[in-house]
């Protein structure tokens, strides 16, 4: 059944995608992309174009609310929350919807929203893991696996057959041929193992806003890849002039200063892969975020060497996200494009601001590698 609204709808989609009416694009808001992970509460972005009107600056305005609390207490909820039911009014409101969804559902929504393909993992058939499962019964085995019920039944059957069973004094003494033991079988299963190695430049030029962007983006990448693979590990490397591996929390919070030698991170990444993630068994996703300022051209060449010879041959893809910062020159992205322009294992993306995150995720994951 086709609806009359479909035409208006596809026109709206075309505006959002920037195909027509380009001047309207400046009014598109995607809403906040990230929710609180702990409570599984996530805001879903729905693009919204607001027609500008004469209106009041919102923060000066305030309003009237209802409920408990003292002066100075914060008030919850988003501006313009609508109650669950109601007339379709002419109300404006901010069209940010807050919902409870699980991260899996969220990943599905993300996938649908960005039209992400499912990931073809590179070595599914090769990767085998053996898993023991108890499936049967045997006559021999260790005492610790004795099947009490079966053993008892056998002993009961034998004593009745032998005529020694006395219902008045039902004592059953199992003998060794009565004993039954659990038996296991080895199941061979192909499994998908994946590791994401996040690398971030934390030199002086990466400010809080840039890190926030990296945080949001890596949250979504994490969510998506987790949906795609059963077992997934994340490792975090930060670097300025030297690199070190850190835990997740430190990764997002550290603010170092000093110079930038990207090769140090790539070196650390390559070593990590070599040490812990044999390429035959793992799907490997190195992601690197930086503002694109590297110390020297020599160092950039070292990076290219490491990438070409050590990282790329073992990775599913290598993603480089360049966050725009007022200090970064953005040179590194150009260098990468120059050296790996035609290589589809290298995906680069420029992230200008928060609104660009969606597009960048699509750049990274849109190839289904």
């Amino acid at each position: 059944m086709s609806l009359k609204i479909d035409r208006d709808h596809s026109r709206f989609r075309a505006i959002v995608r920037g195909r027509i009416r380009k001047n309207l694009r400046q009014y598109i808001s995607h809403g906040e992309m990230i929710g609180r992970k702990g409570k599984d509460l996530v805001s879903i972005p729905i693009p919204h174009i607001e027609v500008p009107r004469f209106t009041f600056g919102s923060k000066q305005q305030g309003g009237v609310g209802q409920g408990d609390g003292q002066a100075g207490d914060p008030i919850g909820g988003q501006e313009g929350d609508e109650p669950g039911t109601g007339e379709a009014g002419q109300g404006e409101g901010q069209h940010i919807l807050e919902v409870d969804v699980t991260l899996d559902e969220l990943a599905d929504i993300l996938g649908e929203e960005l039209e992400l393909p499912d990931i073809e993992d590179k070595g599914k058939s090769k990767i085998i893991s053996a898993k023991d499962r108890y499936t049967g019964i045997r006559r021999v085995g260790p005492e610790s696996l004795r099947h009490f019920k079966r053993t008892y039944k056998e002993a009961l059957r034998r004593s009745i057959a032998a005529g020694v069973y006395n219902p008045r004094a039902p004592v059953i003494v199992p003998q060794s041929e009565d004993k039954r033991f659990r038996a296991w079988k080895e199941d061979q299963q192909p499994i998908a193992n994946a590791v994401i190695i996040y690398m971030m430049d934390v030199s002086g030029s990466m400010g809080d806003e840039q890190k926030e962007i990296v945080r949001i983006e890596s949250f979504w990448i994490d969510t998506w890849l987790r949906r795609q693979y059963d077992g997934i590990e994340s490792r975090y490397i930060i670097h300025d002039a030297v690199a070190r591996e850190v835990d997740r929390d430190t990764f997002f919070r550290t603010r170092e200063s000093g110079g930038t030698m990207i090769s140090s991170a790539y070196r650390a990444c390559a070593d990590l892969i070599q040490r812990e993630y044999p390429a035959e068994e793992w799907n490997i996703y190195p992601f690197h975020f930086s503002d694109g300022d590297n110390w020297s051209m020599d160092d950039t060449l070292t990076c290219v060497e490491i990438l070409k010879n050590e990282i790329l041959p073992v990775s599913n893809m290598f993603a480089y996200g360049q966050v725009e910062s007022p200090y970064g020159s953005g040179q590194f992205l150009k260098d990468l494009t120059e050296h790996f322009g035609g290589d589809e294992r290298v995906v680069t993306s420029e992230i200008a601001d928060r609104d660009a995150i969606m597009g960048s995720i699509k750049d990274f994951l849109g190839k289904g590698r």
Partner: protein
Amino acid sequence: MPPFGRKTSLPSYLRAEQEKIEGIARSLGLDFFPTVFEILSYDRLNEVAAYGGFPTRYPHWRFGMEYERLSKSYEYGLSKIYEMVINNNPSIAYLLEGNSLTDQKLVMCHVYGHVDFFKNNFAFRSTDLDAGALVTDIARRGEDYNPERKWIDKMANHGSAIRRLMSRHGVEPVEELIDVCLSLENLIDPYSPFIVRHAEEPVEEEEPSDVEVPRLRAKDYMESFINPAEYLEEQRNKLRAEREKKKGKFPASPRQDVLQFLLEHAPLERWERTILSIIREEAYYFLPQMQTKIMNEGWASYMHSRMMTQHVCDWSDIIDYADNNAGVMATSGKRLNPYKLGVELYRNIEERWNKGRFGRDWDECRDLEAKRNWDLRLGLGQEKIFEVRALYTDVTFIDEFLTPEFAMEHGLFTFEWSDRNDRFEIQTREFKKVKEKLLQQLTNSGNPFIFVEDGNYKNRGELLLRHDHRGIDLRIDYAQRCLESLTRLWKRPVTLATKVEDKPMLMSYDGEKHQRENAEP
């Protein structure tokens, strides 16, 4: 008729419910237009809702946007529209296919509340097409009041007019102009329907020969003392100067209906005029609904709750009803819920008029104990709330019936943005402040007051608008976009006089660049 069109008629078990509920509504004193229920699947309902209730609106991307929002909310399980009813005679209401029977009954009850409100509240009189969008007599109408409100047809005509323009002038230019007009959509005058306007500038009126200075009456011999010649001369000059000043004035007095002014005086091509006037007409159509959000929802909720709990629900319905009703009435995140505020105010009014808690004796009583037990057994509550639903809008409703006791009982407070903590915070529970804030938000439906001040600004045919600043600054980037829209229609530079951070500010746009300066016009 397309096949799904035929399926919109009500199945017989719902028709039976409708008859029953209509009878109950009537017995409670509701007086409504004939009401037609249609049942729609969720995507059709979302479609109709996206069009603001009219399945035949003009094509525009924002309806598509609304549709996407509604369908996503539905598909992700966030919210769904239960009901929708449009102010039309006969009124059309939509039910969602697949809702439980209890929900359908609830919706029907709610709808009859709305339709009664549409018919009886005076503000909706401005949507009577046979009255030419004028309400000069706000006296209450009787049961036989049967105005022409064929807005379904009207909107359909607008739709086909715009489609026709699109095929003649192209989709882009027409849509672009619609966007321009929409950005000015709120520049209308809520009182306009109640003012009989005389022709703006009387044509070829004879200029009175000279100004006349009124004299005080005096006996002959006192004349030179009571009306001294120099004083008269002074007054004469003053009046002359005033007239001189007024002479060049156009419009003679500031006009709040900016859209109307543009229609009358902007150099518009015929197709542009058609679009602007369609946007203006529809803005006025939706205006009463904005002006009575609290009252209308409150009334419908009050009525559905009476009807459901006293007449409609049987024991198998009551839990579902209560659950659903609680969802509608919930105040989430301490935000004000118009449904809740409205229904509680009606109940409060009913109680006060039943017990005689109004008037001078009540106001002047300082004895708390006496006030607590005050009950004159007047039983005027029902009569009063029916009167209130006819004669008030949200502003006057809150102004007259929000009492300190009510505000305290319901825990109302004001909140404001805290720069220090970067969040909205509770500010005060002081009654005066709460009421002030509430009224401020409702006044002019929450829109800034903007007037046409001068249609021949600087004597160069430019347009000067004035923002009547009442404590809150305009959002500047949006105001600039609106100036662009105005310039597009006026085709000459447009200036807006406003205040920013307590300093007068002139914002102007000349078709190429924006200018801002701290100055008075």
